């Protein structure tokens, strides 16, 4: 009897690991997704290890060598204050990636917690939260972000908060709907009958079932927030302009003079933003194919 | 082979494979079967054995990553007495479309999802009719009403303009059957028509199908894994396992004289009313292998109690153990080998 169970367990394990292997293989075979993953990893890596990759201080001003085109000394040239563009883009990536990743993570977290609660407890709480999410969704995102920035003030931390406030609704709806569907499942009722704490049922038993789409939507949000950060810089309500971020660097290069004379000042941050967003999107698509095939 | 007008459908060596992950996986292998006019042919086997793929390959309703090949797939129409080579037709070309619906009707497994949720059922049934006969909508509606009545859908005049979600499962399946029947086709292919239904409804639907066969002289291909249904419905039986026809014969051949070890195991696993005490329901040991992992030789070898080394060496030929009763097993290599 026991040997039989262990056989089954083994079979299960084998099945599970082969599923994982199959998924990994599927992902690796998706060439775009792999390229995306590699780009994201490379960009994040260079941002994190910026001090090792460049000896320049991104804020070091050297007015004597302003607007130098890319050369050996300054790989990607310098800006109008003689700051090294390569260093600025690396350090800028730290802030931009941090803000968007944290924003997406926090948004997903809030969405998951509220969604679990709404879906599990239902009733008035559910109604209230759904209404709230509808209201948030009714607002044009950009306008909501601008108002929130006006209230909270500009700053890296505040921007994360703003992204979190404006980005939880999709996750919320997804998690809530899934919870509504799963709440009636037998295994949940069994857990309840065993007297398992509600929080444990919610987060340990049900939540793992919805993690895949949540992860996918969080990746997509990261891409969106990178673009939002750039737009906010353009409108002058993003991260304070003294902090180098991709958005701020690109925004500083929007003048006609720069666009027509100093290509590296806009092409580099613009290119990095586009590549990162593209890569994240490819990566997210690949992830979706693997994790969540039915929800294309 | 010239008195073959008797066989409404004649399939020889049909193979289908899917391309996935840049690998080709053979799902249906050299399937040959013949459907006698006015009879029911049951295709049985465990789920995933390629039953559905076989019939879908015959009517060419396959996704784009499927590769279908066959020596021939011949449909012999009673209406004009012509032979049609289905294997040589474009899947969605005019010729094939003329046959689909008009000469070959199909009933699918899940009535819940087989109907388009946004159109009235009457219109959905009439659609094929209008397509094939070019009759006006009003005329078509009249025929649909008749068909609904015939299929026992109550209050057809009002139900005809209802939407699918307003129907129960059994009623939906009747609508699906109506779609298959409306052009009065020679063949009806029913792909597990009752699997998704309640047991009581199952019986009603099967009775309906049987009466269609008997009264309207339809030829039916019934795909099922339910041996009980087979016993009740079929004239001939085709037992499939892992994309292969393991045994083919008349109902008596299969039930009275099951020859292939797989057929025997399959029959043992059917619950019979009044199972004697102490008598155990047979199970087939092992699990269905992954089609991608299969080696050469008999597909059933791993689970077969009579398995010998030679079973695993090469494809097993067909042996005709009695007229019209074919078995694909080396136990019968004393009989005549037919291909």
């Amino acid at each position, binding site marked *: 009897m026991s040997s039989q169970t262990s056989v089954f367990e083994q079979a299960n394990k084998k099945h599970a690991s082969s599923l994982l292997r199959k998924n990994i293989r599927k992902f690796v075979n998706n060439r775009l997704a792999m390229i995306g993953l590699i780009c994201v990893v490379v960009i994040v890596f260079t941002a994190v290890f910026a001090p090792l990759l460049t000896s320049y201080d991104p804020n070091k001003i050297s007015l004597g060598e302003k607007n130098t085109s890319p050369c050996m000394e300054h790989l990607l040239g310098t800006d109008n204050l003689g700051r090294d563009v390569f260093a600025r883009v690396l350090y800028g990536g730290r802030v931009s990636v941090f803000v968007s990743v944290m924003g997406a993570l926090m948004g997903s977290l809030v969405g998951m917690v509220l969604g679990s609660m709404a879906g599990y407890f239902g009733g008035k709480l559910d109604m209230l939260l759904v209404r709230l999410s*509808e*209201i948030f*969704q*009714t*607002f*044009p*995102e*950009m*306008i*909501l972000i*601008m*108002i*929130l920035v*006006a*209230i909270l003030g500009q700053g890296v931390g505040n921007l994360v908060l703003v992204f979190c406030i404006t980005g939880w609704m999709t996750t919320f709806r997804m998690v809530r709907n899934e919870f509504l569907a799963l709440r009636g499942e037998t295994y949940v009722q069994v857990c309840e009958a065993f007297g398992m704490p509600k929080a444990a049922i919610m987060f340990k038993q049900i939540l793992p079932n919805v993690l895949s789409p949540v992860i996918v939507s969080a990746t997509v949000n990261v*891409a969106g927030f990178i*673009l939002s950060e*750039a*737009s906010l810089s*353009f*409108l*002058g309500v993003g991260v304070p302009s003294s902090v180098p971020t991709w*958005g701020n660097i*690109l925004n500083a290069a*929007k003048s*006609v003079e720069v*666009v027509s004379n100093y290509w590296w000042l806009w092409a580099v941050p*613009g290119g990095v*933003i*586009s*590549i990162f*967003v*593209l890569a994240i*999107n490819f990566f997210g698509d690949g992830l979706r194919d693997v994790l969540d095939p039915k929800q*294309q | 082979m010239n008195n073959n007008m008797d066989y409404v459908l004649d399939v020889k060596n049909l193979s289908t494979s899917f391309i996935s992950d840049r690998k080709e996986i053979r799902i249906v292998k050299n399937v040959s079967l013949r459907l006698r006019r006015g009879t029911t042919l049951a295709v049985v086997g465990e789920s995933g054995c390629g039953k559905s793929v076989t019939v879908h390959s015959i009517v060419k*309703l396959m*996704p*784009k990553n499927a590769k279908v090949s066959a020596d021939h797939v011949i449909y012999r129409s009673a209406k004009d007495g012509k032979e049609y080579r289905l294997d040589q037709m474009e899947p*969605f070309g005019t010729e094939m479309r*003329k046959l*689909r*619906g008009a000469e070959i*009707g199909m009933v*699918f*497994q*899940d009535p819940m*999802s*087989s*109907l*388009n*949720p*946004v159109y009235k059922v009457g219109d*959905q049934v009439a*659609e*094929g009719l209008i*397509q094939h006969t070019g009759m006006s909508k009003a005329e078509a509606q009249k025929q649909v009403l008749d068909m609904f009545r015939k299929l026992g859908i109550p209050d057809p005049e009002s139900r005809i303009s209802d939407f699918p*979600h*307003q129907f129960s499962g059994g009623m939906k399946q009747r609508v699906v059957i109506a*779609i*298959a029947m409306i052009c009065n086709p020679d063949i009806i292919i029913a792909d597990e028509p009752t699997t998704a239904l309640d047991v009581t409804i199952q019986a009603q639907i099967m009775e309906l199908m049987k009466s269609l066969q008997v009264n309207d002289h339809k030829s039916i291909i019934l795909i099922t894994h339910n041996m009980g249904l087979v016993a009740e419905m079929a004239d001939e039986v085709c037992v499939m396992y892992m994309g292969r026809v393991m045994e083919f014969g008349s109902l008596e051949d299969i039930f009275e004289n099951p020859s292939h070890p797989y057929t025997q195991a399959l029959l043992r696993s059917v619950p019979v009313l009044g199972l004697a005490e102490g008598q155990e329901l047979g199970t087939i040991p092992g699990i269905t292998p992954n089609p991608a992992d299969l080696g050469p030789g008999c597909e059933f070898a791993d689970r077969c109690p009579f398995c010998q080394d030679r079973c695993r060496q090469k494809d097993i030929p067909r042996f005709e153990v009695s007229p019209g009763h074919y078995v694909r097993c080396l136990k019968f290599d004393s009989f005549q080998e037919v291909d």
Partner: protein
Amino acid sequence: MLSFIGKKLLQMIPMLLLISFIVFGGLQLMDIDPISYMVTPDMAASAENQEALREQLGLNDPFVVRYFNWVKDLLTGNFGYSIINGTSIANIVRTRLPATFELAIIALILSSVIGIGIGILSAIRQNGIIDYVGRVFAVLGQSIPQFFFGICMVQIFAIKLGWLPVNGRTSPGASGLGDAIVHLVLPVLTMTVAMCAVLMRYSRNTMLDVLNSDYIKTARSKGIPEWKVYIKHGFRNAMRPVLVILCFRLPMLIGGSVVIESVFGWPGIGSIITQSVVSGDYPVIMVTTLMVAAAILVASFLVDVLTAALDPRVRLGE
């Protein structure tokens, strides 16, 4: 159907009230003094007079008083005045909302037609040329910051080539459709690119889903031509989720107009909202955001109605 519409309309009222309260409450937390914004330090005038103005505009009243006064005024049709430039808000809405809608709706229609069209074509011919080109385009459109794309468009098409006007909605001395169209091209193009991308991906995926469903098989088993399968059975079912996403995209479209209007000097509500948020012009923010929210609610209501028209399950209330 009528009761369905009525119910949906009634649901909008508490939504709007709640939104107004949240916006109003939020703005109180905003640490911006419109009077100060109005009078820059470069040009400081009499502080006493500024204080008098603050008093007169009721900026010193408590929050609740101001909220109720505001709602009362709104209900009597008095939208109030901008603190910053004194324009009557009714005027702002009257002159600017149409401009924003013009842009948004044209971009919406264009991007829907192109996006959904290409999306569906690429689903039908999966992995074909249209599919491939469409996907590349979609992914590019989604990854370029909008304002930068807009600035480049102006440089290329308005300055270098001189084909199109650089900004604005009309030119003096010109009128009619031609004038309107040349001004629309660049902003609409910029807006469409991003919007198109999303719709293309989404409608491709839904169409693929639909094409894999059983009823498509049923339809094919009837022997009807493929185009009929796609249009009649595929398209109509694929449209439902696409419409929903379209509805969710509407706020983004209006939100996107904030950036677009700044880039192209488009005299719409978006640029006013930017200005008002930056300057703390709360009466304008209140009314304009409410208007936008109402417009979006109406739009999503229209989408609901369309969905109901497309899907009997919704219409007949399952």
